[in-house]
C-alpha cells in the first residue's frame, strides 16, 4: 500500500492554530496536503463525538490543535479541552485504537513552521499506523 495517502482531519482553533496554519501558507512553507482543516472557535468546542465520528467514517487520523495554555481567546477553553482529551486519548488506546490516530497540539498564531513540522511528523506516523480499519471498513 505504498501509494496510499492517509486522510487526516484537523480541528483548528480559530484564534491560534488556524492562524498559525495560515501563516505557514503565507510563508510558503511546504507540508503534506493530507490534513483537512475544520475551523472551530476554540479547542474547547471540539466534542469527543466529532473525533469518534471522524475515525469511524474514514479518517485515518484526527488532530485537535488549539492555543497554548494561557493564550486562549476565551481564557479557559483549552483547559477544558486538555482535561477532556486526556481521558479520550487513554480510552481510545484501551479500546485498541492506535494512539497515533488521535493527537493534540498547541500551535500559536506565530508558529507557522512548528505547524508544518508537526504535520510532516503526523503524516509520517499515520502512514506507519496504516489505513484505519475501524467501523468494519474493508477498503483502506
Amino acid at each position, binding site marked *: 500500500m505504498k501509494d496510499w495517502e492517509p486522510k487526516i482531519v484537523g480541528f483548528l482553533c480559530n484564534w491560534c492554530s488556524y492562524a498559525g496554519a495560515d501563516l505557514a501558507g503565507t510563508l510558503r512553507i511546504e507540508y503534506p496536503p493530507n490534513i483537512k482543516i475544520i475551523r472551530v472557535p476554540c479547542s474547547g468546542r471540539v466534542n469527543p463525538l466529532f473525533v469518534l465520528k471522524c475515525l469511524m467514517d474514514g479518517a485515518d487520523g484526527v488532530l485537535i490543535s488549539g492555543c497554548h495554555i494561557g493564550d486562549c481567546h476565551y481564557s479557559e477553553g483549552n483547559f477544558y479541552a486538555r482535561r*477532556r482529551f486526556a481521558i479520550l486519548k487513554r480510552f481510545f488506546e484501551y479500546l485498541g485504537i492506535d494512539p497515533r490516530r488521535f493527537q493534540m497540539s498547541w500551535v500559536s498564531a506565530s508558529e507557522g513552521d512548528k505547524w508544518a513540522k508537526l504535520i510532516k511528523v503526523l503524516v509520517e506516523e499515520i502512514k506507519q499506523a496504516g489505513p484505519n480499519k475501524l467501523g468494519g471498513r474493508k477498503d483502506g
Partner: protein
Amino acid sequence: MAEDLKNKARELLRARQVDLVIGYKRASDGIAAAPCFIDIEGDADKLIWDAYCVYNLSVYLKDFRGKKIGIIAKACDVKSIIVLLQENQLKREDLFIIGVECPGVIDEKRLCFSDRQYQEVDRAIKCRPCASAVPLLYDWLLKEKEKMGKVSEDHDKYDSVRKLEAKSLAERLKFWEGEFSRCIRCYACRQVCPMCYCPKCVADQAMPAWFPKATGDKGNFSWNVTRAIHLAGRCIDCGECERACPVGIPLRDINKKIEKDVKELFNYEAGLNAERKPLLSCFDKTDPADFIR
C-alpha cells in the same frame, strides 16, 4: 430488621413528609427482588431488604421531579444521588434518603446464567472491593443486624482492567470489536443508568445522526464508546449496566478504565462530595499535558 424499614416508610407517608417511597419488594418468582413504589401506607409491608436488592433505584428519581420522594438507597446508590445533586438534577430537600448498611448484594447475573439450582452464589464482583458499607448521605439509617460475610478488601478493583491493558493493541481491538459485535442495541445500559437522563440521547438524534442505528460494526462500536465517554467522572460503578446487558458485554471493564484514568490523571472520584464541581466542568493548572505536542 425489615420491620423498622416498613415502619419508617409508614411514618413518612402518614406524616406526608414524602409523596412516594421507592424501595424493593419480592419479585413474582419469590426469590429475586424488584423495585416498588409505595404511595399509600397500607402497601408499606411489601418492602423488603436483603442481598437480592440489587437495583440502583436512583434511576427513577428523574420520573418524579418536583415531588417529595423517599428512597431506599445502598452506599453505591447514594453515590449516584450525590452525582445527580452535583449536576443539579435533584433538590436535596425533595429527597428523604433511607440509608441501608449494605453487606454486598448477590451476583444476580451469575445467578441467571449459572446452573439454575440457585446454589449459594457469591457476592457481586462490584461489591467485593467496596469499602463503603454505610452510605455517605442519609436522613435515616437502617441498622443491619447480622453482618453477612464481608468479602476481603484486598481485591484490586482494577485487576480486569490491568489484565486488558497488558494485552497488545491489536488484541484489545479484537477483544472489544468481538464484544461489541454481540450488542443488540437494546439500550438497557442507558436506560438502567441513573446518569443517563438526557431528554434526547445522542443515539436517538437524526440531525445529525452521530452513528448508525443498525447493529453493524460501526454503530455498535460508536454506541458503546459514546456511552462510556459521557460517564467520565460521573460513573460510580453501581454495576447496573453490566448486570442489565442481556448479551453479557463487560461494560464495567470499560467504565472502570475511565474511572482509573480519571483517578490517576486528576485525582477525582465520582460521587463523594455533592458540593464539588463535576470533573469536566472545571480544570486545574496542573492537569497533565504530556500527550500534547
